[in-house]
């Protein structure tokens, strides 16, 4: 379990990184925190000729909490996101997601950009970013471009990133004051990759709602029917309906896996809705607390 021979370059800036990446051509690989690439190198599943380390490129290391959106540099670590102050539901959600990744030692090094680029179907950030409708920004020799994370990730471990391109940052739109987020990650052991994940964002002011299933199928997917039902009723859909939709969109037919995935989604919905309930054990079908939550034509 030792890597093949490779050259290593610690990039001093974005242009320097791009230059080295392009000079090396197909044999080059970007190194962020190395929390996935490291083991893959040791297992010789990844065999690059050159590693371009972007983990200390200043331009990739900033977080800009603007009024309309939060911009997070690709080389910002999970721990840095976990430790940031939070001012709204999006930042609170990001803290929750960051804090649930692996263990602190991994979070100290692993980066959000690396997680998106690796596109592990069970990884936390891609699931959250799809749920939040985030966009990923990319720089290459030909210039800059951006696309939604849900389009950027094509399949398991497969993205739209072309050779010679670097993810610079992700951009997450802020949510309204009434917005609620729910996340449920089921794993065999604390810090392991998930067996199933559910992520839910309900944002009445922006008429935006997304229910996402993750760790099932090749990539995180918005459950459109479940989302519409939730948006229209502010009630959790029937478990059987959730299960059926996951089976269809993820092409997953193992009953245990499907049941687990539906439970994760159901619990994420419950957690998002729980914030509206007057108390945890109260009757959530009561009218008062959820007035204004439902909306018919949600932007998913």
């Amino acid at each position, binding site marked *: 379990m030792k890597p093949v021979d490779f050259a290593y370059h610690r990039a001093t800036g974005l242009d320097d990184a791009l230059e080295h990446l392009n000079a090396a051509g197909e044999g080059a690989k970007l190194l962020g925190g190395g929390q996935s690439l490291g083991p893959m190198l040791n297992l010789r599943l990844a065999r690059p000729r050159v590693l371009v380390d972007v983990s200390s490129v200043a331009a990739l290391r900033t977080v800009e909490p603007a009024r309309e959106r939060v911009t997070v540099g690709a080389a910002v670590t999970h721990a840095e996101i976990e430790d940031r102050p939070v001012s709204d539901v999006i930042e609170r959600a990001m803290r929750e997601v960051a804090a649930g990744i692996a263990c602190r030692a991994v979070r100290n090094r692993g980066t959000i950009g690396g997680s998106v680029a690796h596109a592990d179907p069970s990884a936390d950030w891609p699931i959250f970013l799809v749920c939040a409708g985030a966009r990923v920004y990319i720089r290459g020799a030909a210039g800059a471009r951006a696309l939604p994370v849900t389009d950027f990730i094509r399949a398991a471990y497969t993205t739209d990133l072309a050779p010679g391109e670097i993810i610079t940052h992700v951009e997450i739109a802020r949510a309204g004051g009434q917005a609620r987020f729910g996340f449920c990650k089921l794993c065999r052991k604390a810090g392991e990759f998930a067996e199933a994940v559910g992520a839910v964002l309900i944002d009445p002011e922006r008429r935006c709602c997304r229910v996402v299933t993750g760790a099932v199928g090749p990539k995180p997917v918005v459950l459109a029917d479940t989302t519409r039902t939730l948006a229209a009723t502010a009630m959790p859909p029937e478990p059987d309906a959730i299960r059926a939709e996951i089976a269809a969109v993820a092409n997953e037919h193992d009953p245990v896996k499907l049941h687990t995935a539906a439970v994760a989604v159901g619990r994420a919905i419950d957690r998002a809705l729980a914030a509206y309930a007057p108390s945890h054990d109260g009757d*959530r079908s009561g009218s008062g607390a959820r007035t204004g939550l439902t909306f018919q034509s949600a932007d998913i």
Partner: protein
Amino acid sequence: MSTGIGVRVPRKEDARHLAGKARFVGDLSFPRLWEVAFVRSPLAHARIRSITVPERHAGRVFTARDMEGVRPIRAESSLPTYKPSDYPPLARGKVRFAGECVALCIAPTRAEAEDIAEEVILDLEALPAVIDSLAARRPGAPRVHEEWGDNLFLTTSVDGDFESARKRAAVVVEREYRTARQCMAPMEGKAVLARHDERKGQLVVYTSTQVPHLIRTGLSQFLGLDQADVRVIAPDVGGGFGYKCVLQPEEISVSWAAMRTGRPLRWVEDRREHLTAGANTRQHHYRLTACADGRGRLLAVDAEITVDVGAYSVWPFTACLEASQAGGNLPGPYALDVYRCKTFSVATNKPGFTPYRGVARPGVCFAMELTIDAVARAVGREPADVRAENLVPASAMPYTNVTGKHYDSGDYPASVAGARRMIGLDAVRARQGRSPPLPGGADRPDTAHARQDHAERPARDSRRVDAMSARQGSPGPDGRLIGVGFSTFTEQTAHGTRVFGAWGLPLVPGYEQATVKLAPSGTVEVRSGNHSFGQGLETTLAQIASEQLGIGVDRIRVTMGDTGETPYSTGAYASRGMVMAGGAVSKAAESLAGRIRKHAAHLLQTGADRVSLTGGQANAAGGASVSFEDVARAWYLRPDQLPDDVDTQGLEVTEGYKPEVDTGVFTYATHAAVVAVDPATGSVEILDYVLFEDCGRRVNPMILEGQSYGGAAQGIGTALFEESLYDENGQPLTSTFADYVLPGPVELPAMRIEHTESLSPYTRHGIKGIGEGAAIAPAGAVVNAINDALSPLNVEINEIPATPRRILAAILAAKTSGPNEDGRRRSP
């Protein structure tokens, strides 16, 4: 302050471990040292057509063809029906498991050696693989060893009049149980460094082993060397658990290559090698039938045990040990009159079975303890009561059981009572709303209804609050089902000559020897051929010497693990270290104490019987004293001060020891667990865990508790997490820790331990072995608790690890076959 027996002395070895100054094989350095990487078989079963080494790597790659004169590892046994296997250190003709060593590659660094290994071309003709041990038993199954007529290493059989007992039975419980294949996962894997000492003309092998003297014997035998030409040194060893108590093929091939090349060579097992080629233990299958009277008193047990032994028999413990131990130990602590058992040790295309902490007993304990609970449910009684009533009572001690095991001392039912009190059984039953459990498990709609989900599942932190309230007996709000389970075992420890002789193994332990010496400076040196690989033996052996000599452990130096410096010992296994090496040190130290008293009496001008040893001094009855240093100086430097009738053997004593009755001394314990099972996900949280143990006299209670925590953690791994999986072609599917799941600190409960001490009548100081014990019971306790929790859903788990997937699959299956309610919470 005393540092003798019974004192919580801080571990001597921790000073270097905590300072990062320990030295493992991986830390060693020699001039011209190169590293080794192995080419391992990618297939589980194949004929080797050819092995091609690129010309530029000539002299860097070695195969079986190069190793002329090296014998295959072959472990004999005198047990009838046993077939030994030939296990070449590098595969010859065929490969029999994925991960088997085929070629050895050397280079200045491991990465370069792996580069070379990648370029060696194996031309293999794939053969059908035998992966399932029951399928391997069938006629016509592909044969792992073609020259055998079948795949059976060994079959054993014990007969009893089961059928007539069955006629008398009020209840008959039949079950099928499975335990998974596992890895032992020590922090340090295997590691070996071999070099030739030109001056001494000796092959010197540094290896991460529990049994340095045995490795020396084995290397000599299979390499064809005189033992005098081999020295084995086990430096610091980072955990063994049985993984390192057998001769490894890599120890032979690396030693051979070091002699062949004249260059120091080292191989360090990496984690992928461990998780594939080291997946070698625990896998059992049981068909078990128990007959009981209307109160749940066992009348008879019938068992068929199949052990998946893998491809090869390990040396020296053979492929027989596991099944022999399983068949002999299944009745365990229970007073059982009728027992019938067949065992099958089956060859499959997996790594060769190696004894792991508890040896067979984690499996038999799991099978027997689940059966006891099934009997209790069948008769509608509290399992803890049924368990206690079936145990051998204290009044029957010493007791020889139905398989001839001789239990030396103890009060087994008291351990159930102790665990029951510690876990708060009544409060758990009150919280469940049931007491005692109803028969059958299915017919209690009221209870099931009462425990349906009502409220929001709390976040992770508040689940801990639940855990607290579970102990206090208040109902949990999160929809999880609570269950409690017990598990009792007895463990044969330090079994010796007679037991191993009966198995006819290549190794039969006899008198364990130790040397104790008063050095010129007045400090004490202890030498043992046993080894410490985390058990704290460096400290506890010093405590034994301290007890006998009245000198603090800080002035006692313990040397182990080096065949050049220590007397022969078969090593550390079978929970024998404290009984055997401790007994030998005790006896040698006692003898040395007599000599010190005699010399001191002369210096003090009094009688030896009037001299006592305390505080590193020899004290005369009248108050005068001389220091150990004075006594040592007289012998080494001022012999003119010695008496005429001085003992000419001096101040260095080697003694041999074994207990008067050497069939083993029996430790026992009851573990109890409270679990919460989430019926929607199948996940299990252990809310509470207690151990009530008896290992006779405790030498260092603190170290012992550490052993118990660690053992129970491994047992919980067996119960809930660990499983080496294969596809139908024998490809390992769990080759990293992402797939082979070990419990971590978050998954493990804060365990509570209590002890009682029933001294063994047969051993020095009444000590019994404890090293393995705590790993035995957890699967029984945890899965009994899971089954207790799931009984309202009419679900029973009989396979470990009890993963969320297995539990959920069983719940979903019960739902489709019965009218039970949907376990998932529905919002209002």
